[in-house]
């Protein structure tokens, strides 16, 4: 058995997480088109490969081979930097998400998580709020009115909704008492008591977080930064080739990350019902080693987490093809006069419930 230092294992995990988020983002483009088609009584792309499964590859080839275009008067360095920043921030935020519990074989033991830090949630928030710079820089550097309008919209929308998002998150943190995503996940499981997921304790907070997640990822009904009926393409009007591809791709990576965060915060992350019972049963009456039983539980939990993430991604697409876009004043009114007060009320309720010992 090879022995690698923990750092070696963690770098493998980081690489796998990176590859998996890219793969999922790739197939999100396919899923988006197929789900859109199914919701509209069509069948979607089915020409490239069986069931059209090679469609993302064809799209990638198309994106890479298209003409690279720089608009006149554009700031070239920033024009290239914008999509890069959008992509980097989107990929960075998945680093702290616990995709599974601990795995051990021989003397090796590691977490299925990029980096375990005690400021996990803060990291996600910091990186996600950096993401708006990618949009802003790209929109400004294009030297185009529509791009700039889209970028300004993106900036003001993200700032408005990040407030409500943070406030709804504070209620979760009041319960958990930690910012570490792994700790938050583990708190949502207790032997014999599996209905401990935060959604039970924070239903209102979850709805607020969900709405803000839609706004943060610029998805319908909050896709005003790129609304094609008003702004041609929004902040990526002037982009072509793979630079446009990076913008579109970073949106899907963001959806994946925000789905993972929601699963971890509110739906128990890698926990699944009766996991400890299953482990103990395997270890006691099936003659498994405790470590290998735990490995099996971890693998099943990772699968469970991905099932939750895919369910959220499906929900994102389902909403996109159901709801029309908000008007800009409606968007602002919803953010400032409804979601933020609701989030504050949610904090008050949570505080009261904690004080009187109803939830802990």
């Amino acid at each position, binding site marked *: 058995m090879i022995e690698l230092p923990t750092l070696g294992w963690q770098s493998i995990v980081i690489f796998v997480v990176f590859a998996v988020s890219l793969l999922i983002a790739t197939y999100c483009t396919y899923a988006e088109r197929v*789900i859109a088609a199914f919701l509209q*009584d069509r069948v979607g792309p089915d020409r490239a490969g069986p069931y059209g499964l090679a469609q993302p590859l064809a799209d990638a080839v198309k994106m890479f081979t298209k003409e690279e275009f720089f608009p006149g008067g554009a700031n070239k360095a920033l024009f290239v930097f914008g999509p890069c920043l959008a992509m980097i921030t989107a990929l960075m935020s998945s680093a702290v998400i616990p995709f599974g519990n601990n795995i051990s074989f021989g003397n090796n033991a590691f977490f299925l998580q990029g980096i375990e830090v005690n400021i996990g949630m803060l990291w996600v928030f910091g990186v996600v709020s950096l993401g708006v710079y990618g949009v802003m820089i790209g929109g400004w550097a294009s030297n185009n009115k529509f791009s700039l309008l889209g970028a300004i919209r993106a900036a003001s929308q993200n700032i408005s909704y990040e407030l409500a998002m943070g406030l709804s998150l504070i209620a979760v943190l009041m319960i958990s008492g930690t910012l570490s995503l792994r700790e938050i996940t583990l708190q949502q499981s207790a032997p014999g008591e599996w209905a401990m997921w935060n959604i039970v304790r924070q239903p209102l907070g979850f*709805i607020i977080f969900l709405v803000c997640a839609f706004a943060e990822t610029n998805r319908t009904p909050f896709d005003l930064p790129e609304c094609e009926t008003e702004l041609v393409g929004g902040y990526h009007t002037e982009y072509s080739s793979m630079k446009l591809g990076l913008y579109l791709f970073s949106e899907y990576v963001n959806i994946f990350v925000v789905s993972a965060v929601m699963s971890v915060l509110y739906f128990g992350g890698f926990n699944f019902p009766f996991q400890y019972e299953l482990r103990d049963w395997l270890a006691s009456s099936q003659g498994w080693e405790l470590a290998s039983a735990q490995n099996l539980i971890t693998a099943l939990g990772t699968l469970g987490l991905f099932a939750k993430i895919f369910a959220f991604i499906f929900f994102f697409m389902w909403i996109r093809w*159901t709801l029309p876009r908000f008007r800009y004043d409606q968007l602002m009114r919803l953010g400032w006069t409804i979601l933020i007060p609701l989030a504050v009320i949610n904090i008050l309720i949570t505080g009261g419930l904690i004080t009187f010992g109803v939830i802990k």
Partner: protein
Amino acid sequence: MQPLTNRAKKLEKKPMTLAERAYLPAIFQGLSITMRHFFMKKATVRYPEEVRPFSPIFRGLHVLKRDEQGRERCTACGLCAVACPAEAITMVAGERKKGEEGLYREEKYAISYEVNMLRCIFCGLCEEACPKAAVYLQADKMAPPRFERDEFIYGKDRLVEPVDPAKRSERGIQLTPEQAEALRNKMAQQPA
């Protein structure tokens, strides 16, 4: 004013109820509608593999008919070209030589007969104009998609029906009454 029908719905402008203002019930209603469509039968016809059933009076690809003895009916009179509103038909007339009586029914025949399928609007006026019952639009064939424009100019090699009576198009006047009846029954059996 007297309403024409009783279907007009009177709209009252009243303040929204709490459920309407909360917006979430409406969202769930919309989600349920789209989810119902998710599982519905799809309207798509995957064209090259699946073909929609044609109507029995569909006007598709042209055919140049032969008579009962396998001779070409067309005499290159040009009436179809005159009738054609899209000017899709061109032809060159020629005189039948000795020994060609088995090929062409009359002394004059079409050396070349071309239909440009990109111009053709499949109106069937050529069919109506033809005094020799030579040109018909088939009900069961279409001009297939191609990559090159010149491939859409159909010459006699692709328009004239085969000599073998069994392989001939079922459209046209060479049918006996029994054959016509059989064709009509076959068309009627096809799903609409």
